């Protein structure tokens, strides 16, 4: 009887977790382990049997003789800090705004969320058109300096171009999470605050903010890892250019492996990248988790 029950449980696990596990193993775990191995080899990426074991040489090279990787690292950090701050402030403000009673609330929510439904590559091409053609035309018509800048043609405009599109794309998604959290704040607490004479600003700061802390944790995590891993937008919007001034880490890895023909070095970079993302994400979650409270 007992045995039968246990095997039954096993069957259940197998049926429900099994397929997921198999897919996960095939498309995540195995490539990851392979990548770990290739990061110690010199390989052009074409034929598996030509990978040559060279030990720590790749890592050594990255740390001693690869300015572009570190430039990309710096760029990515800067990009992440800016986009995480801007996205979350904007999303939280939109969330607060769109939970107040107002006309057209649902329509506005949908509109803000829409950019998230379009893939990064496509967004990149659309915005490339807007920046290079649209902005130019507006600039010609109005003579405003902002639109007359050589958008995407200089390192600064390239950076801010990427920031604008990334923020535009992710804010809607974060907004939805914040809305869900704000709606979930118990009514009685809000009413109590109002009766105690708290202003709206005080309510937001003392009641809503502590209670939506879990949402902030989630959103910070999502935006941080998203910004750190940004690739598709980079590829389609600036291609890392002008020069290599807007090359994100992910793009640098791609270029090393597929443009320069050095898969081994590229995977070594990817491994470093993985550890960097993990450390940053875990630290961030740990920090914000401590601020969460129970209602």
């Amino acid at each position, binding site marked *: 009887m007992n045995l039968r029950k246990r095997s039954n449980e096993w069957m259940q696990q197998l049926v429900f977790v099994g397929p997921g596990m198999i897919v996960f193993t095939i498309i995540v775990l195995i490539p990851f382990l392979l990548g770990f191995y290739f990061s110690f080899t010199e390989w052009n*990426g074409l034929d598996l049997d030509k990978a040559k074991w060279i030990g720590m040489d790749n890592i050594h090279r990255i740390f001693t003789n690869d300015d572009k990787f570190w430039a990309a690292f710096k760029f990515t950090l800067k990009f992440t800090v800016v986009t995480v701050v801007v996205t979350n402030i904007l999303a939280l403000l939109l969330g607060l705004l769109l939970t107040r009673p107002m006309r057209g609330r649902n329509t506005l929510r949908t509109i803000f969320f829409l950019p998230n439904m379009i893939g990064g590559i496509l967004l990149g091409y659309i915005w490339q058109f807007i920046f290079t053609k649209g902005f130019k035309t507006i600039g010609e018509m109005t003579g405003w300096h902002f639109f007359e800048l050589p958008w995407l043609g200089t390192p600064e405009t390239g950076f801010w171009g990427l920031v604008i599109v990334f923020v535009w794309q992710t804010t809607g998604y974060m907004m939805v999470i914040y809305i869900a959290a704000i709606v979930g704040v118990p009514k009685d607490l809000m009413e109590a605050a109002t009766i105690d004479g708290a202003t709206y600003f005080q309510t937001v700061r003392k009641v809503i903010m502590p209670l939506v802390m879990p949402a902030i944790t989630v959103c910070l995590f999502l935006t941080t890892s998203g910004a750190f891993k940004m690739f598709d937008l980079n590829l389609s919007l600036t291609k890392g250019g002008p020069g290599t001034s807007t090359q994100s880490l992910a793009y640098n890895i791609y*270029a090393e492996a*597929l*443009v320069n023909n050095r898969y081994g070095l590229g995977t070594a970079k990817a491994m470093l990248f993985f550890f960097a993302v993990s450390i940053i994400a875990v630290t961030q979650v740990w920090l914000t988790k401590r601020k969460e409270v129970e209602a």
Partner: protein
Amino acid sequence: MKKLSILLAAAILTLTAAGCGNNGNNSGSEATNKPAESANATTEATTTPKKNVTIKVFQFKVEIADALNRMAEEYEKETGVKVEVETHGGGEDYNALLKAEIASGSEPEIFNSEGYAALEAYYDRATDLSGEAWAKDVIPAAAGPAQVDGKLLGMPMNIEGYGIFYNKDLFEKAGITTLPKTLTELEAAAKQLQAAGITPFSTTNEWWSIGHHTINVGLAEQPDPIAFINGTKDGSTNFKDNDVFKKWINYVDVVFKYSQKDKLTTDYATQVANFASGKAAMIQQGNWIQGDVDKVAKLNVGLLPIPIDDSGNAHIYTGPANFWIVNSKSKNAEEAKAFLNWMVTSETGKTYLTKEFKFIPALTSIKPTADEIGQMGVAVSEQAATAGGWHWGRYPDGVPQGWGAAMQEYQGGSIDKDQLFDKLEKAIQEIVSK
């Protein structure tokens, strides 16, 4: 309700299972097909191809994409062999995409590669084509970059040349009567155009245009290009102290100075469109833009050699754009050979090559007429005898990309010419050094 959802789940599961089963069957039948094909190949029954064969062509020339698709349809009508064309070029990084394609396990029957160093990675895939019927007709200069140990590893796609194409009508409008032969004259002409309210040059920030073509001018003008290139690889020569590159930078400056205002954000398509619509009078591009220009307007164009000094000794630069490589690791390599053979021997194929692709053929057996390859093609063939060569292919992949990035920075004014030369050298060392 619960029952319904369980039913649904079960249905979905069985469906996916069925799907997997089907896939399995397919791969099984493919596997059984294979021996039959190779048997065919050994008996050289390439003249009667089977119906269910597909050749995949992975190619980079966006300019011919439409026409190539139409040619593929014709081939299918004639022989029953399906030709699938996948085009990645223009703004895309073709070489990276090809690598990704092959790394993903897909082995296209035919793909493009440049010669020299770029071909090295594909040595064990490139089939020796020196035994093919057309091989004896290939122009030696075009075959060079793909000749390794007496083997011909690819069919040259065509011959292409670039220089400075100019709009004759706009030159006339600006009152330019004698064509500029030196750099000083070129700048004077540019000033004259500007005075007439015409943008002198249409340039782009596309890495391959300013990376490959513009830098190649400096390479090809060296007294001994190969010695210079080898010197830059082992670090014994540099760009900064090189007389030719010292002059070359003056030409680059003239082009950038007299270009349209938004050159930093102009991609290839826009660059060509600006020239084609008469917004700019000159463009440093090759005869491959003919098709795109024709779509906009029938321009009256001429070709100027590129001057880097006042010696009057200027050239255009020609080479085989690319090679058709038959992939020996693909399933239908023999069919691919037959397709290439058809392309350069059958009347339909030849017509497409010259009339539709507007190619200057790399085979002596194909003789196009002037109106087939267009005005630009004719202009290139006229100056081909004195033309310089294409040398960037002698550097491994990654070097021209690095050059393109450095040139973009120079174009944007964020580095000066000494820094540019340093970066050009660094781009080589980053790839060449272990």
